């Protein structure tokens, strides 16, 4: 079965961000595929390269990136949600003349249309944290 995930909760604030990751791992372990993971609302904080949790707590952006590399996952972050909350890639930092950019490697910024497209082509769209 083809799954897509909508992550709406920020890591460390809500268990849902962690649950989404664990669900993705379980999906892949059972032989399902994941078309896209879409980060929206506060969920976009899960794509910050600057997140620095204590060493004995999981670093979700790092874990998503590793999972994406292993399984070729498409990690898409809503550009409007991310830019207003201060998660920018190099392009947006340049566009808005900001002093730095912090989108974690392995993620990309794109529009809300990517959520719709994911829902259309996937058998299941699962929301975490809304």
């Amino acid at each position, binding site marked *: 079965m083809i799954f897509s995930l909508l992550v709406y909760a920020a890591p460390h604030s809500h268990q849902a961000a962690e649950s989404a990751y664990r669900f993705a791992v379980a999906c892949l372990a059972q032989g399902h595929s994941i078309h896209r993971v879409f980060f929206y609302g*506060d969920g976009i904080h899960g794509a910050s390269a600057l997140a620095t949790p204590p060493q004995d707590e999981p670093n979700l952006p790092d874990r998503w990136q590793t999972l994406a590399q292993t399984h070729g996952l498409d990690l898409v972050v809503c550009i409007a949600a991310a830019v207003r909350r201060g998660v920018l890639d190099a392009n947006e930092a340049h566009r808005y003349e900001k002093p730095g950019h912090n989108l974690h490697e392995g993620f990309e910024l794109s529009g*809300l*249309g990517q959520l*719709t*497209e994911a*829902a*259309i082509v996937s058998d299941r*769209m699962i*929301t975490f944290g*809304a």
Partner: protein
Amino acid sequence: MSTRKRFLVISRRPPYGSSHARDALDTALTTAVFEQPVSMLFLDDGVYQLLQAQQPGGIQQKNLGATLSALPMYDIDQLYACSDAMQSRNLGVDDCLLPVQLLDTDAIAQLIRTHDVVLSF
């Protein structure tokens, strides 16, 4: 994209206080732009989004009612609200800025069953 799915966007948070309501609306509008049939269902405090004459200027927020009024222009005219949620908040369809159908819980379950994709905010 030739495939069409029936989308139901469920919105259960009040219009102001969190980004849920705006994000639900943006999702519905974007999905309509992709030429997918979209319905919206308002539950719990989400029914407050339907109120006329919202004045969020005092908290420096944009008027969500203005965005809501644009839904029919995007062919999103299947709007539903939970009758219990409306009644317990002493609201009626006359308080709403758009025509909305009231559904009881059985009808809501049926509505959800008839859609391919449910996105809940």
